[in-house]
């Protein structure tokens, strides 16, 4: 403004100004330029700081979490002695089932110790208990399932590969050292010495851990076998149901509010309330879900169906807001054009407005789903934090009514476990969750590109 006002016939200011050169900046211009430079710098600093924080966060997660995708396993031949596993000798399934995991555990421990002796692997001062204690407590159950599924294995010698316990696994990953082992009642120095020898001989090895993605959760005593299988299924079921529940309802509600509803006090009130619903703390929705869906409607606890219903309630406002914005962004000239050739209101909406709003609607929906995917608090209240070890049934076999858990809930429950092996599991689960989010966001971008129309 300074130059413009100087040009104006203002008798009071004109004499004070005098003749100025364009080459020199006056004080006001310098101040303005300095303010602009400062503002740009603040912005830059803010962005750099947030990027740094993000980088640190991702670095920590990946540093702690990537090891969860690798797992130490012990491979050795095991003879499935018929006298232990089938004392009756008739291969009768009922008799076979009478041998519990304790029996199998003893068999595995004995066979492993025998194998080490046969191989000439000796560590001074190591007890048999220490030797069998290197194998995960998950192994007996696994072996028992194998035998029950195929009784003809009895009497044969098979190559068996079992998870090493969390401490041995941690030793191979560098988390457990000989120093920490001396203070640790769960692992002995001798076991670690044995682990060194086994690693050299190739009996103990570390490899990609598919079980982390497929296994169900496991108790505190056997972190090595804990996996995300049920959490992933639960999350997928919930996302699927949330999409089914929210997209039609949200889009229909938005179209009605935006295109058909009369503008009056009532619709204003509805509008304000939709915006407010989007800001309600999620735990409130959890309590609501507990009261209505579980206590009143009697739906099963911990089921993905109830989880999806609760999350749908939370996602709906987000989708409605995004969809209304997308619909409003369609230029009114298109509506005029359609109405002008005699299209009805509904034809206008469905033939012209909706296709043009589609990219925005899909992006909003996927981003709403992405935030729903990370939702934890309401799921805790409806029991999805339960310890679930049975896979839910297929989606068409009522699997959505079966107890399940969800990825963020699994992160939460592992993060609160005492065994340090769960730290990497927890971070690993975060990586899986982030991978899901990245996939969804990429899908949003691709869909937007696919549906976007050029003007």
């Amino acid at each position, binding site marked *: 403004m300074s130059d413009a006002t100087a040009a104006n016939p203002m008798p009071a200011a004109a004499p004070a100004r005098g003749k100025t050169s364009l080459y020199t900046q006056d004080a006001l211009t310098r101040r303005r330029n300095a303010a602009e430079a400062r503002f740009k710098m603040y912005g830059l600093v803010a962005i750099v700081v947030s990027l740094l924080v993000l980088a640190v966060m991702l670095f920590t997660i990946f540093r702690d979490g990537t090891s969860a995708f690798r797992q130490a396993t012990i491979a050795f031949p095991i003879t499935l002695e018929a006298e232990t596993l089938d004392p009756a000798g008739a291969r009768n399934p009922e008799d076979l089932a009478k041998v519990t995991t304790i029996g199998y555990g003893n068999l595995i421990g004995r066979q492993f110790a025998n194998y080490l002796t046969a191989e000439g692997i000796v560590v001074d001062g190591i007890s048999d208990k220490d030797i069998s204690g290197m194998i995960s407590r998950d192994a007996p159950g696994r072996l028992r399932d194998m035998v029950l599924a195929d009784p003809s294995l009895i009497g044969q010698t098979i190559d068996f590969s079992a998870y090493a316990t969390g401490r041995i696994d941690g030793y191979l990953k560098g988390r457990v050292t000989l120093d920490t082992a001396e203070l640790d009642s769960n692992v002995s120095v001798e076991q670690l010495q044995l682990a060194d020898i086994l690693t050299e001989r190739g009996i103990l090895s570390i490899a990609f851990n598919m079980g982390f993605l497929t296994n169900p959760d496991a108790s505190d005593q056997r972190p090595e076998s804990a996996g995300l299988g049920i959490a992933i299924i639960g999350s997928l079921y919930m996302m699927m149901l949330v999409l089914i529940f929210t997209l039609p309802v949200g889009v229909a509600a938005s179209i009605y509010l935006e295109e058909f509803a*009369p*503008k009056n006090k009532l619709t204003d009130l509805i509008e304000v309330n939709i915006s407010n619903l989007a800001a309600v703390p999620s735990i409130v929705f959890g309590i609501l879900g507990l009261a209505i869906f579980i206590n009143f409607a009697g739906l099963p606890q911990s089921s993905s169906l109830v989880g999806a219903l609760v999350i749908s309630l939370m996602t709906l406002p987000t989708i409605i807001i995004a969809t209304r914005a997308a619909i409003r962004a369609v*230029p009114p*000239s*298109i*509506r*005029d*054009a*359609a*109405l*002008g*050739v*005699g*299209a*009805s209101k509904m*034809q206008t909406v469905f*033939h*012209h407005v909706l296709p*043009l709003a589609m990219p925005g609607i899909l992006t909003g929906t996927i981003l709403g789903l992405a935030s729903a995917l990370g939702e934890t608090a309401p799921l805790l209240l409806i029991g999805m934090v339960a310890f679930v070890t049975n896979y839910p049934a297929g989606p068409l076999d009522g699997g959505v009514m079966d107890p399940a858990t969800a990825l963020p809930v699994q992160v939460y429950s592992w993060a609160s476990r005492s065994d340090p092996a769960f730290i990497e599991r927890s971070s690993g689960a975060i990586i899986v969750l982030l991978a899901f989010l990245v996939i969804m966001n990429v899908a949003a971008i691709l869909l937007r590109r696919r549906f976007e*129309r*050029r*003007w």
Partner: protein
Amino acid sequence: MDDMRLVERDVNQLHSKIEAKGVQVYYGEKQALKDVDVSILDRTVTAFIGPSGCGKSTFLRCLNRMNDTVASARVMGSIQIDGEDIYDARVDPVQLRAKVGMVFQKPNPFPKSIYDNVAYGPKIHGLATGKAELDAIVESSLRKAALWNEVKDRLDASGTGLSGGQQQRLCIARAVATSPEVLLMDEPCSALDPIATAQVEELIDELRSQFSVVIVTHSMQQAARVSQKTAFFHLGSLVEYGETGQIFTSPKDPRTEAYITGRIG
């Protein structure tokens, strides 16, 4: 298109297509149109002129009930097309708009192919029974809009990829595709360059042989060039309505004279 012989244009033997009586329009509390009486002739180009905000576009939008989409708008009085009141409770605006086509100020083709743009109206009104018939309608509409030769090889190309003048002619083709009886044009050339304007004006003159054309324009030259009848609106009322030659050469009302000589507006 012969500017010099305005007075010789003869429109007297044509019958009246639209009869408006005592039309008043309110937007909320504000009165936008005061007691407009006008009789628009068949197969004639009628121009509405007047300064901005004088109500000429409002009146135009009453003729196909596009004002219905404005929640606060109230229309009073009677508008009859061929003796039928278009604001009668029995009238469905959707049917009316197929009969009274409209071209807007800004070219607004659908972001679809040229073919789909023109075919949309006939499709939703069930005017064509098969693909061949639809093709024929699309071709004849594009020919009427003097666009066929330019686009016949790229009917699948997007309508929004055309130039401004072509887009506006596409919109005209889209409007004539439903075989309307009246064509309303709301400043159809205001977003076009002079060459495109000339093309559209020429087109309007040709369309007169089939429809009654009502055009709102800010350009008095344009009104003089294309229309046979002219209505001058000022501050929401119809000041003067008569043959274009008479309005521009010997206006009866002093306000009309002031406007066409550039003293108000």
